[in-house]
């Protein structure tokens, strides 16, 4: 990891300042909402990237971890009056344990087979929750309204606090991903991605490192789930456990650039505004035009720039040298 140049440092500082000032400067709730969704999916993209980008474990089941996070904190809050911040950690731990539980039997599955197993896992979780009385099955759960406070993780008068919380979550995820990628685990995951044989030959227990990757990814994704529940204040299996969430997460990471730290953030910054804005502008006509535009963009990027936007920028820089 090279030290950032002065120019880069100034750029990042300016970007951070702009992000911090955003909800204060921009009026209206919609732009802030879009930014919150960008950060939420950027965070999940970063978490997915630890699995898919670094270790080539293409999980299409991230919705399961997202849902487990959302449901754990909500159930704890509703039934046992547990503070959502504690619920957040509990959801993360539970998701990590679930990740380990599916990670161990799947530890030898490669490429597509891991993807299939992850879809199966997430669908089982969704169907189970749809029929599970304890979590109100398909009816869903409305969170009890608590007074505005950071301690309650609930704000009714403004979206700005949610904006800052998810921004911190995102920065935390990026920091974790950066730490992993520059240390032993990142090197080991990339070796595993290259070849299991090579990894074994270099003394790397790929079962163990793949397990670590799943658990960290699951924990972060569950954190995003709890955030979503606290933000929307209503969850049901159709909003937090469905396959499109998993797919969206994969797209965000792939379009931005899998296997890079900042790629998923860029991917989210492009895709989420696009999907939110096309939905609001065009979606109400019921013609599906928004989905068509969205789909076309995905096709263009995957056909012409499979390494993602960040991969494209990096290759330009490399050529310029």
């Amino acid at each position, binding site marked *: 990891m090279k030290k950032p140049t002065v120019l880069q440092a100034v750029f990042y500082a300016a970007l951070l300042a702009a992000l911090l000032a955003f909800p204060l400067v921009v009026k209206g709730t919609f732009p802030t909402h879009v930014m919150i969704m960008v950060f939420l999916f950027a965070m999940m993209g970063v978490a997915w990237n630890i699995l898919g980008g670094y270790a080539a474990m293409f999980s299409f089941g991230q919705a399961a971890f997202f849902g487990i996070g959302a449901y754990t904190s909500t159930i704890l809050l509703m039934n046992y009056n547990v503070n959502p911040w504690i619920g957040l950690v509990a959801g993360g731990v539970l998701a990590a344990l679930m990740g380990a539980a599916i990670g161990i039997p799947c530890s030898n599955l490669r490429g597509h087979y891991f993807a299939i197993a992850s879809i199966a896992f997430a669908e089982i979780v969704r169907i189970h929750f749809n029929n599970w009385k304890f979590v109100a099955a398909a009816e869903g759960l409305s969170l009890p309204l608590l007074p505005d406070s950071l301690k309650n993780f609930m704000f009714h008068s403004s979206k700005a606090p949610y904006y800052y919380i998810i921004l911190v979550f995102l920065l935390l995820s990026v920091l974790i991903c950066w730490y992993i990628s520059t240390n032993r685990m990142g090197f*080991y995951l990339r*070796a595993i991605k290259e070849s299991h044989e*090579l990894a074994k*030959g*270099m003394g*790397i227990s790929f079962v163990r490192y793949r397990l670590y990757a799943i658990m960290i990814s699951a924990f972060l994704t569950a954190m995003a789930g709890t955030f979503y529940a606290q933000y929307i204040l209503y969850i049901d299996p159709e909003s937090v456990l469905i396959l499109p969430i998993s797919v969206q997460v994969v797209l965000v990471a792939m379009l931005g650039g899998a296997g890079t730290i900042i790629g998923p953030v860029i991917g989210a910054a492009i895709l989420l505004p696009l999907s939110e804005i096309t939905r609001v502008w065009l979606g109400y006509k019921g013609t599906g035009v928004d989905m068509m535009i969205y789909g076309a963009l995905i096709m263009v990027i995957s056909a012409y720039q499979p390494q993602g936007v960040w991969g494209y920028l990096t290759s330009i820089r490399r050529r310029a040298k």
Partner: protein
Amino acid sequence: MTAGPCLEVEGITKRFGGLTANEDVSFTVNQGEILSIIGPNGAGKSTLFNCITGFYRPDAGKVLFRGKDITTASAHKICKLGIARTFQIVQVISDMTVLENVMTGTFLRTYDRKKVREKAGEILRFAGLYEKRDFLGTNITIADKKRLEVAMALGTEPTLLMLDEAMAGLTPVELREMIGLLRKVRENGVTLVIVEHVMEAVMELSDRVVVINSGRKIVEGAPKDIVRNPEVIQAYLGDRYNA
């Protein structure tokens, strides 16, 4: 350094269904020597190699590394114990730089990133690849990849280095360089087992040679004796030349 042999292979048998790839193969590797395993194509050299390094589990027999039974140990544990290997089909991490490739190996014994980087740099100087440290693994020549593989293996600080055809396909100049590198590795106290087809290298490097044919060990001895051995000539050239 502990006394006694570095590696003891006792009666290794490995079957794939009806095919017996190795049958009752035994040999010993002494501390600090270079032992070559040769034999015609399909003789079972690579299978033997994989049985020793934990990639295959033998059906019978034992492998002892510095007196410790490693027959059933998993591959990554064997590496941790001090046996590093390279692959017949060269394997490097293609989207990492040359330096990062070696760092992946050196991370085995150190967690500190700075130390890992320094040590990897030293190993690259040793292997004559330091100038290419910032190249991507995918962008270097086959000869460099083979040297990089050795460097990656050295990163794990092995006491025994096992090379599977590290010299196949090299030009004469590249071959000289590789032989020089392996000599230096041995001078640093690393024991070497090489599976090789390139006889020039085998003759020059080896202290002893083990010849395998049809899964069995047929002879073992000094390189100059091996090439005159009638059984070896028969194995390579067929009956007609067995005067």
